[in-house]
Protein backbone atom coordinates (compact mmCIF):
# COMPACT_ATOMS: atom_id res chain seq x y z
CA UNK A 1 0.00 0.00 0.00
CA UNK A 2 1.36 3.38 -0.88
CA UNK A 3 1.73 6.39 1.36
CA UNK A 4 -1.41 7.97 2.65
CA UNK A 5 -2.83 10.84 0.61
CA UNK A 6 -3.87 14.11 2.18
CA UNK A 7 -5.91 15.95 -0.44
CA UNK A 8 -6.63 19.48 0.56
CA UNK A 9 -3.64 19.82 2.84
CA UNK A 10 -1.88 22.07 0.35
CA UNK A 11 -4.85 24.18 -0.50
CA UNK A 12 -4.96 27.65 -1.96
CA UNK A 13 -5.84 29.26 1.33
CA UNK A 14 -2.45 28.70 2.98
CA UNK A 15 0.91 30.34 2.30
CA UNK A 16 3.33 27.92 0.72
CA UNK A 17 7.06 28.48 0.71
CA UNK A 18 9.52 26.13 -0.95
CA UNK A 19 13.31 26.19 -0.50
CA UNK A 20 15.15 24.30 -3.20
CA UNK A 21 18.82 23.50 -3.86
CA UNK A 22 20.79 21.27 -6.23
CA UNK A 23 23.83 19.30 -5.08
CA UNK A 24 26.29 17.41 -7.25
CA UNK A 25 25.93 16.62 -10.92
CA UNK A 26 28.84 16.80 -13.31
CA UNK A 27 30.40 19.71 -11.48
CA UNK A 28 30.13 21.79 -8.32
CA UNK A 29 28.10 24.92 -9.04
CA UNK A 30 27.90 27.12 -5.93
CA UNK A 31 25.14 29.16 -7.52
CA UNK A 32 22.89 26.12 -7.93
CA UNK A 33 23.76 24.71 -4.51
CA UNK A 34 22.57 27.90 -2.83
CA UNK A 35 18.94 27.41 -1.71
CA UNK A 36 16.34 29.45 -3.54
CA UNK A 37 13.03 30.36 -1.94
CA UNK A 38 9.89 30.09 -4.03
CA UNK A 39 6.86 31.83 -2.60
CA UNK A 40 3.89 30.27 -4.31
CA UNK A 41 1.57 33.14 -3.54
CA UNK A 42 3.85 35.47 -5.46
CA UNK A 43 3.45 33.38 -8.61
CA UNK A 44 0.73 33.92 -11.24
CA UNK A 45 -2.46 32.12 -10.20
CA UNK A 46 -2.16 29.24 -12.67
CA UNK A 47 1.49 28.58 -11.69
CA UNK A 48 0.59 28.74 -8.01
CA UNK A 49 -2.18 26.21 -8.54
CA UNK A 50 0.04 23.93 -10.62
CA UNK A 51 2.84 23.92 -8.04
CA UNK A 52 0.43 23.19 -5.19
CA UNK A 53 -1.06 20.38 -7.22
CA UNK A 54 2.40 18.88 -7.84
CA UNK A 55 3.23 19.06 -4.12
CA UNK A 56 -0.07 17.32 -3.33
CA UNK A 57 0.40 14.63 -6.00
CA UNK A 58 3.92 13.90 -4.74
CA UNK A 59 2.43 13.48 -1.25
CA UNK A 60 5.39 15.52 -0.13
CA UNK A 61 4.58 15.74 3.58
CA UNK A 62 4.49 11.95 3.83
CA UNK A 63 7.89 11.41 2.17
CA UNK A 64 10.84 10.12 4.22
CA UNK A 65 13.69 12.63 4.75
CA UNK A 66 15.92 10.68 2.35
CA UNK A 67 13.92 9.43 -0.61
CA UNK A 68 15.73 6.29 -1.90
CA UNK A 69 17.09 6.32 -5.45
CA UNK A 70 17.70 3.57 -7.97
CA UNK A 71 21.41 3.40 -8.64
CA UNK A 72 22.26 6.88 -9.82
CA UNK A 73 25.99 6.42 -9.34
CA UNK A 74 28.62 9.16 -9.50
CA UNK A 75 27.59 12.54 -10.89
CA UNK A 76 23.91 11.97 -10.15
CA UNK A 77 22.32 15.12 -8.75
CA UNK A 78 20.65 15.38 -5.36
CA UNK A 79 17.88 17.86 -4.58
CA UNK A 80 16.98 19.23 -1.19
CA UNK A 81 13.40 20.46 -0.96
CA UNK A 82 12.01 22.15 2.15
CA UNK A 83 8.32 23.05 2.13
CA UNK A 84 6.46 25.09 4.73
CA UNK A 85 2.70 25.49 4.27
CA UNK A 86 2.14 27.40 7.50
CA UNK A 87 0.95 24.41 9.49
CA UNK A 88 3.71 21.92 8.73
CA UNK A 89 7.18 21.94 7.26
CA UNK A 90 9.28 19.10 5.90
CA UNK A 91 12.72 18.75 4.32
CA UNK A 92 13.38 15.94 1.86
CA UNK A 93 16.56 15.05 -0.05
CA UNK A 94 16.09 13.04 -3.20
CA UNK A 95 18.78 11.69 -5.49
CA UNK A 96 18.46 10.99 -9.20
CA UNK A 97 17.17 8.97 -10.90
CA UNK A 98 13.84 9.60 -9.17
CA UNK A 99 11.59 6.56 -9.23
CA UNK A 100 8.26 8.20 -8.32
CA UNK A 101 6.83 10.00 -11.39
CA UNK A 102 4.92 12.49 -9.23
CA UNK A 103 8.04 13.46 -7.29
CA UNK A 104 9.99 13.62 -10.55
CA UNK A 105 7.44 16.08 -11.96
CA UNK A 106 7.66 18.21 -8.83
CA UNK A 107 11.47 18.33 -8.99
CA UNK A 108 11.40 19.23 -12.70
CA UNK A 109 9.00 22.10 -12.00
CA UNK A 110 11.11 23.31 -9.07
CA UNK A 111 14.26 23.22 -11.22
CA UNK A 112 12.58 25.57 -13.70
CA UNK A 113 11.17 27.84 -11.01
CA UNK A 114 14.49 28.00 -9.16
CA UNK A 115 16.31 28.85 -12.37
CA UNK A 116 13.95 31.76 -12.96
CA UNK A 117 14.55 32.95 -9.39
CA UNK A 118 18.33 32.73 -9.79
CA UNK A 119 18.50 34.81 -12.94
CA UNK A 120 19.70 38.37 -12.31
CA UNK A 121 16.68 40.68 -12.21
Amino acid at each position, binding site marked *: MGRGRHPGRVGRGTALRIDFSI*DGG*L*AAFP*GLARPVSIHCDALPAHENARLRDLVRRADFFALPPQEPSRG*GGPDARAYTIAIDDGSQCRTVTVREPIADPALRDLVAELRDKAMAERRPK
Partner: protein
Amino acid sequence: MSLIRARRQHLPGCCILPPDMLRRIALHGSRNQREAALDTLAVDQTLRLGRATYQLLESGARHGLLGVPTTAKQRTIYDAQGHETLPGRMVRAEGAGGVADVEVNEAYDGLGATFDFYAEVYDRNSIDDEGLRLDASVHYGRRYDNAFWNGRQMVFGDGDGDLFNRFTVSLDVIAHELTHGVTGDEAHLVYLDQAGALNESISDVFGSLVKQYARRQSAGEADWLIGEGLFTASVHGVALRSMKAPGTAFDDPVLGRDPQPATMAGYVHTSSDSGGVHTNSGIPNHAFYLAATGLGGFAWEKAGRIWYETLRDKRLKPTATFRQFARCTVQNAAHFFGPAERQTVSAAWAEVGIRAA
Protein backbone atom coordinates in the same frame (compact mmCIF):
# COMPACT_ATOMS: atom_id res chain seq x y z
CA MET B 1 37.72 -14.47 -16.52
CA SER B 2 39.29 -13.23 -19.71
CA LEU B 3 42.80 -14.26 -20.62
CA ILE B 4 43.77 -10.60 -20.74
CA ARG B 5 42.67 -10.11 -17.17
CA ALA B 6 44.23 -13.37 -16.02
CA ARG B 7 47.52 -12.31 -17.54
CA ARG B 8 47.38 -8.90 -15.88
CA GLN B 9 46.73 -10.34 -12.48
CA HIS B 10 50.19 -11.82 -12.58
CA LEU B 11 51.79 -8.45 -13.12
CA PRO B 12 53.40 -6.98 -10.00
CA GLY B 13 51.16 -4.62 -8.10
CA CYS B 14 48.08 -5.27 -10.19
CA CYS B 15 44.88 -7.06 -9.31
CA ILE B 16 41.16 -6.56 -8.93
CA LEU B 17 40.06 -5.61 -5.42
CA PRO B 18 37.22 -7.78 -4.16
CA PRO B 19 34.08 -6.07 -2.84
CA ASP B 20 34.77 -7.65 0.57
CA MET B 21 36.55 -4.53 1.72
CA LEU B 22 33.56 -2.40 0.76
CA ARG B 23 31.30 -4.75 2.66
CA ARG B 24 33.50 -4.37 5.73
CA ILE B 25 33.24 -0.59 5.44
CA ALA B 26 29.48 -0.94 5.00
CA LEU B 27 29.38 -2.88 8.25
CA HIS B 28 31.96 -1.12 10.38
CA GLY B 29 32.63 2.35 8.92
CA SER B 30 31.26 5.69 10.05
CA ARG B 31 27.71 6.53 9.00
CA ASN B 32 28.87 8.49 5.94
CA GLN B 33 31.36 5.79 5.01
CA ARG B 34 28.69 3.12 5.37
CA GLU B 35 26.26 4.97 3.11
CA ALA B 36 28.92 5.67 0.51
CA ALA B 37 30.12 2.08 0.60
CA LEU B 38 26.56 0.82 0.11
CA ASP B 39 26.07 3.15 -2.87
CA THR B 40 29.34 1.98 -4.40
CA LEU B 41 28.44 -1.66 -3.83
CA ALA B 42 25.05 -1.13 -5.43
CA VAL B 43 26.61 0.29 -8.57
CA ASP B 44 29.23 -2.42 -8.62
CA GLN B 45 26.64 -5.17 -8.23
CA THR B 46 24.60 -3.65 -11.04
CA LEU B 47 27.66 -3.59 -13.25
CA ARG B 48 28.53 -7.18 -12.43
CA LEU B 49 24.96 -8.33 -12.99
CA GLY B 50 24.85 -6.57 -16.34
CA ARG B 51 28.18 -8.10 -17.29
CA ALA B 52 27.09 -11.61 -16.32
CA THR B 53 23.83 -11.27 -18.23
CA TYR B 54 25.63 -9.97 -21.27
CA GLN B 55 28.12 -12.79 -21.17
CA LEU B 56 25.38 -15.38 -20.90
CA LEU B 57 23.44 -13.91 -23.80
CA GLU B 58 26.26 -13.19 -26.17
CA SER B 59 29.11 -15.46 -25.18
CA GLY B 60 28.85 -17.37 -28.44
CA ALA B 61 29.15 -14.25 -30.55
CA ARG B 62 31.87 -12.62 -28.47
CA HIS B 63 34.28 -15.47 -28.03
CA GLY B 64 36.45 -17.05 -30.65
CA LEU B 65 37.59 -20.65 -30.82
CA LEU B 66 40.28 -20.13 -28.16
CA GLY B 67 37.95 -18.43 -25.72
CA VAL B 68 39.65 -15.05 -26.08
CA PRO B 69 37.19 -12.15 -25.93
CA THR B 70 37.10 -10.05 -29.04
CA THR B 71 38.07 -6.41 -28.67
CA ALA B 72 35.46 -5.15 -31.11
CA LYS B 73 33.29 -2.27 -30.01
CA GLN B 74 29.64 -3.05 -29.37
CA ARG B 75 27.82 0.25 -29.19
CA THR B 76 24.07 0.77 -29.13
CA ILE B 77 22.47 4.20 -28.91
CA TYR B 78 18.90 4.67 -27.70
CA ASP B 79 16.53 7.64 -27.78
CA ALA B 80 14.76 8.19 -24.44
CA GLN B 81 12.44 10.65 -26.25
CA GLY B 82 12.26 13.10 -23.36
CA HIS B 83 11.30 10.51 -20.78
CA GLU B 84 13.31 9.26 -17.81
CA THR B 85 12.74 5.61 -18.63
CA LEU B 86 15.74 3.67 -19.88
CA PRO B 87 16.93 2.73 -22.35
CA GLY B 88 14.31 4.01 -24.85
CA ARG B 89 14.04 3.31 -28.57
CA MET B 90 17.11 1.86 -30.28
CA VAL B 91 18.28 4.29 -32.96
CA ARG B 92 21.83 3.28 -33.93
CA ALA B 93 23.61 -0.05 -33.60
CA GLU B 94 27.29 -0.88 -34.00
CA GLY B 95 28.44 -0.47 -37.57
CA ALA B 96 25.36 1.44 -38.73
CA GLY B 97 25.90 4.75 -40.49
CA GLY B 98 25.28 8.18 -39.04
CA VAL B 99 21.74 9.44 -38.53
CA ALA B 100 20.18 12.89 -38.70
CA ASP B 101 20.25 13.32 -34.91
CA VAL B 102 23.55 14.94 -33.86
CA GLU B 103 23.28 13.71 -30.27
CA VAL B 104 23.00 10.10 -31.42
CA ASN B 105 26.11 10.48 -33.56
CA GLU B 106 28.10 12.32 -30.88
CA ALA B 107 27.26 9.65 -28.31
CA TYR B 108 28.19 6.88 -30.77
CA ASP B 109 31.49 8.55 -31.67
CA GLY B 110 32.31 9.43 -28.05
CA LEU B 111 31.78 5.88 -26.85
CA GLY B 112 33.93 4.68 -29.72
CA ALA B 113 36.76 7.12 -29.03
CA THR B 114 36.80 6.11 -25.36
CA PHE B 115 36.77 2.39 -26.16
CA ASP B 116 39.59 2.87 -28.69
CA PHE B 117 41.70 4.87 -26.25
CA TYR B 118 41.57 2.23 -23.52
CA ALA B 119 42.08 -0.62 -26.00
CA GLU B 120 44.94 0.94 -27.98
CA VAL B 121 46.81 2.68 -25.17
CA TYR B 122 46.31 0.38 -22.18
CA ASP B 123 45.18 -2.87 -23.85
CA ARG B 124 41.93 -2.65 -21.92
CA ASN B 125 38.90 -4.38 -23.40
CA SER B 126 36.07 -1.95 -22.61
CA ILE B 127 35.02 -0.64 -19.21
CA ASP B 128 35.28 -3.96 -17.40
CA ASP B 129 38.24 -5.25 -19.47
CA GLU B 130 35.97 -8.08 -20.51
CA GLY B 131 34.31 -6.54 -23.53
CA LEU B 132 31.30 -4.93 -21.85
CA ARG B 133 28.97 -3.56 -24.52
CA LEU B 134 28.58 0.20 -24.49
CA ASP B 135 25.00 1.42 -24.41
CA ALA B 136 23.87 5.04 -24.23
CA SER B 137 20.55 6.85 -24.14
CA VAL B 138 20.21 10.40 -25.44
CA HIS B 139 17.34 12.90 -25.06
CA TYR B 140 16.87 11.77 -21.46
CA GLY B 141 14.30 13.79 -19.53
CA ARG B 142 13.00 17.28 -20.15
CA ARG B 143 15.56 20.10 -20.35
CA TYR B 144 17.81 17.72 -18.41
CA ASP B 145 21.11 19.28 -17.30
CA ASN B 146 23.29 16.26 -16.70
CA ALA B 147 24.98 13.14 -18.01
CA PHE B 148 25.84 10.07 -15.96
CA TRP B 149 26.94 6.45 -16.01
CA ASN B 150 24.37 4.42 -14.07
CA GLY B 151 26.46 1.27 -13.73
CA ARG B 152 25.05 -0.23 -16.92
CA GLN B 153 24.90 2.53 -19.50
CA MET B 154 25.49 6.18 -20.33
CA VAL B 155 22.67 8.68 -20.02
CA PHE B 156 22.70 12.12 -21.69
CA GLY B 157 20.32 15.03 -21.19
CA ASP B 158 19.63 17.67 -23.83
CA GLY B 159 20.50 20.55 -21.50
CA ASP B 160 18.09 23.36 -20.75
CA GLY B 161 19.30 25.54 -23.62
CA ASP B 162 19.68 28.51 -21.25
CA LEU B 163 22.82 27.44 -19.34
CA PHE B 164 23.74 24.10 -20.83
CA ASN B 165 23.92 22.71 -24.33
CA ARG B 166 23.42 19.04 -25.10
CA PHE B 167 25.60 16.83 -22.91
CA THR B 168 26.97 14.79 -25.80
CA VAL B 169 28.86 17.82 -27.11
CA SER B 170 32.01 17.25 -25.08
CA LEU B 171 34.13 14.15 -25.67
CA ASP B 172 35.96 14.50 -22.36
CA VAL B 173 32.62 14.46 -20.50
CA ILE B 174 31.63 11.22 -22.23
CA ALA B 175 35.01 9.70 -21.36
CA HIS B 176 34.75 11.09 -17.81
CA GLU B 177 31.50 9.23 -17.25
CA LEU B 178 32.69 5.98 -18.79
CA THR B 179 35.82 6.17 -16.64
CA HIS B 180 33.56 6.11 -13.57
CA GLY B 181 32.71 2.63 -14.81
CA VAL B 182 36.41 1.73 -15.05
CA THR B 183 37.06 3.02 -11.52
CA GLY B 184 34.03 1.13 -10.26
CA ASP B 185 35.42 -2.02 -11.79
CA GLU B 186 39.02 -1.58 -10.61
CA ALA B 187 39.57 0.49 -7.49
CA HIS B 188 36.07 0.75 -5.93
CA LEU B 189 36.98 4.21 -4.64
CA VAL B 190 34.26 5.24 -2.21
CA TYR B 191 32.41 8.29 -3.51
CA LEU B 192 33.04 10.42 -0.44
CA ASP B 193 35.64 12.94 0.76
CA GLN B 194 39.20 12.43 -0.56
CA ALA B 195 38.52 8.98 -2.04
CA GLY B 196 35.52 10.46 -3.83
CA ALA B 197 37.59 13.41 -5.07
CA LEU B 198 40.16 10.91 -6.38
CA ASN B 199 37.33 9.04 -8.11
CA GLU B 200 36.28 12.31 -9.76
CA SER B 201 39.84 13.27 -10.61
CA ILE B 202 40.54 9.93 -12.29
CA SER B 203 37.51 10.51 -14.49
CA ASP B 204 38.82 13.97 -15.41
CA VAL B 205 42.33 12.64 -16.05
CA PHE B 206 41.21 9.95 -18.48
CA GLY B 207 38.43 12.14 -19.85
CA SER B 208 41.07 14.67 -20.85
CA LEU B 209 43.44 11.97 -22.12
CA VAL B 210 40.76 10.49 -24.40
CA LYS B 211 40.31 13.94 -25.93
CA GLN B 212 44.06 14.51 -26.22
CA TYR B 213 44.52 11.06 -27.81
CA ALA B 214 41.73 11.71 -30.33
CA ARG B 215 43.41 15.01 -31.25
CA ARG B 216 46.94 13.58 -31.02
CA GLN B 217 47.91 16.52 -28.79
CA SER B 218 50.96 16.62 -26.56
CA ALA B 219 50.69 17.62 -22.91
CA GLY B 220 51.93 21.07 -23.88
CA GLU B 221 49.35 21.47 -26.64
CA ALA B 222 46.30 20.25 -24.70
CA ASP B 223 43.75 22.68 -23.25
CA TRP B 224 43.25 20.60 -20.04
CA LEU B 225 39.62 21.73 -19.91
CA ILE B 226 36.77 19.43 -18.91
CA GLY B 227 33.42 20.08 -20.55
CA GLU B 228 34.32 22.77 -23.05
CA GLY B 229 31.27 23.52 -25.18
CA LEU B 230 28.73 22.50 -22.53
CA PHE B 231 27.89 26.06 -21.56
CA THR B 232 25.68 28.20 -23.76
CA ALA B 233 26.94 31.59 -24.91
CA SER B 234 25.03 33.25 -22.04
CA VAL B 235 27.27 31.66 -19.38
CA HIS B 236 30.44 33.41 -18.26
CA GLY B 237 32.81 30.48 -18.45
CA VAL B 238 34.76 28.23 -20.76
CA ALA B 239 34.21 24.78 -19.22
CA LEU B 240 33.23 22.85 -16.08
CA ARG B 241 36.81 22.59 -14.84
CA SER B 242 40.39 23.42 -15.72
CA MET B 243 43.10 20.97 -14.74
CA LYS B 244 45.74 23.51 -15.71
CA ALA B 245 44.26 26.31 -13.60
CA PRO B 246 41.61 24.96 -11.19
CA GLY B 247 39.18 27.62 -10.01
CA THR B 248 39.20 29.61 -13.26
CA ALA B 249 36.77 27.71 -15.50
CA PHE B 250 33.66 29.81 -14.84
CA ASP B 251 32.46 32.84 -12.91
CA ASP B 252 28.80 33.32 -13.66
CA PRO B 253 25.92 35.17 -11.96
CA VAL B 254 23.73 32.04 -11.95
CA LEU B 255 26.22 29.17 -11.62
CA GLY B 256 28.55 30.99 -9.26
CA ARG B 257 32.32 30.86 -9.35
CA ASP B 258 34.40 27.76 -10.07
CA PRO B 259 35.18 26.56 -6.51
CA GLN B 260 38.09 24.23 -7.30
CA PRO B 261 41.34 24.64 -5.36
CA ALA B 262 44.64 23.86 -7.08
CA THR B 263 46.54 23.02 -3.88
CA MET B 264 45.94 21.66 -0.37
CA ALA B 265 46.05 25.22 0.96
CA GLY B 266 42.60 25.69 -0.57
CA TYR B 267 41.15 22.30 0.44
CA VAL B 268 37.42 22.68 1.11
CA HIS B 269 35.91 20.89 4.11
CA THR B 270 32.23 20.42 3.36
CA SER B 271 29.44 17.89 3.67
CA SER B 272 27.91 19.03 0.37
CA ASP B 273 28.49 17.14 -2.86
CA SER B 274 29.60 13.96 -1.06
CA GLY B 275 32.28 15.87 0.80
CA GLY B 276 33.28 18.17 -2.04
CA VAL B 277 34.18 15.47 -4.57
CA HIS B 278 33.79 17.86 -7.52
CA THR B 279 35.62 20.63 -5.66
CA ASN B 280 38.71 19.05 -4.12
CA SER B 281 39.31 16.96 -7.24
CA GLY B 282 41.02 20.12 -8.47
CA ILE B 283 44.04 19.21 -6.33
CA PRO B 284 44.84 15.76 -7.81
CA ASN B 285 43.77 17.11 -11.21
CA HIS B 286 46.41 19.81 -11.01
CA ALA B 287 49.01 17.32 -9.79
CA PHE B 288 48.34 15.21 -12.88
CA TYR B 289 48.65 18.27 -15.13
CA LEU B 290 51.98 19.16 -13.52
CA ALA B 291 53.26 15.59 -13.81
CA ALA B 292 52.14 15.26 -17.44
CA THR B 293 53.65 18.55 -18.57
CA GLY B 294 56.78 17.83 -16.51
CA LEU B 295 57.22 14.45 -18.15
CA GLY B 296 56.44 15.92 -21.57
CA GLY B 297 55.32 14.28 -24.80
CA PHE B 298 51.93 12.64 -25.06
CA ALA B 299 50.37 12.63 -21.59
CA TRP B 300 48.84 9.17 -22.01
CA GLU B 301 52.24 7.54 -22.51
CA LYS B 302 53.90 8.21 -19.16
CA ALA B 303 51.69 10.18 -16.75
CA GLY B 304 48.55 8.43 -17.95
CA ARG B 305 50.17 5.01 -17.70
CA ILE B 306 51.34 5.74 -14.14
CA TRP B 307 47.85 6.86 -13.10
CA TYR B 308 46.23 3.88 -14.88
CA GLU B 309 48.51 1.38 -13.14
CA THR B 310 47.79 3.12 -9.83
CA LEU B 311 44.05 2.78 -10.45
CA ARG B 312 44.63 -0.97 -10.83
CA ASP B 313 47.14 -1.26 -7.99
CA LYS B 314 46.07 -3.62 -5.19
CA ARG B 315 47.66 -1.28 -2.65
CA LEU B 316 45.08 1.40 -3.45
CA LYS B 317 42.31 1.13 -0.88
CA PRO B 318 38.66 2.12 -1.50
CA THR B 319 39.08 4.83 1.14
CA ALA B 320 42.42 6.09 -0.21
CA THR B 321 43.52 9.58 0.74
CA PHE B 322 45.27 11.98 -1.61
CA ARG B 323 48.60 11.16 0.04
CA GLN B 324 48.12 7.40 -0.26
CA PHE B 325 47.18 7.75 -3.91
CA ALA B 326 50.13 10.09 -4.51
CA ARG B 327 52.59 7.66 -2.93
CA CYS B 328 51.26 4.91 -5.16
CA THR B 329 51.79 7.03 -8.28
CA VAL B 330 55.36 7.83 -7.21
CA GLN B 331 56.11 4.13 -6.66
CA ASN B 332 54.57 3.23 -10.01
CA ALA B 333 56.53 5.99 -11.76
CA ALA B 334 59.72 4.37 -10.47
CA HIS B 335 58.52 0.83 -11.20
CA PHE B 336 57.27 1.37 -14.75
CA PHE B 337 59.73 4.09 -15.84
CA GLY B 338 62.64 5.17 -13.62
CA PRO B 339 64.12 7.61 -11.10
CA ALA B 340 63.71 10.69 -13.29
CA GLU B 341 59.99 10.02 -13.74
CA ARG B 342 59.70 9.25 -10.04
CA GLN B 343 61.21 12.63 -9.22
CA THR B 344 58.91 14.49 -11.64
CA VAL B 345 55.76 12.87 -10.23
CA SER B 346 56.89 13.46 -6.67
CA ALA B 347 57.59 17.12 -7.44
CA ALA B 348 54.15 17.51 -9.03
CA TRP B 349 52.46 16.31 -5.84
CA ALA B 350 54.73 18.51 -3.72
CA GLU B 351 53.66 21.54 -5.75
CA VAL B 352 50.02 20.95 -4.81
CA GLY B 353 50.97 20.50 -1.16
CA ILE B 354 51.14 16.71 -0.87
CA ARG B 355 54.34 15.05 0.32
CA ALA B 356 54.40 11.75 -1.53
CA ALA B 357 58.03 10.68 -1.52
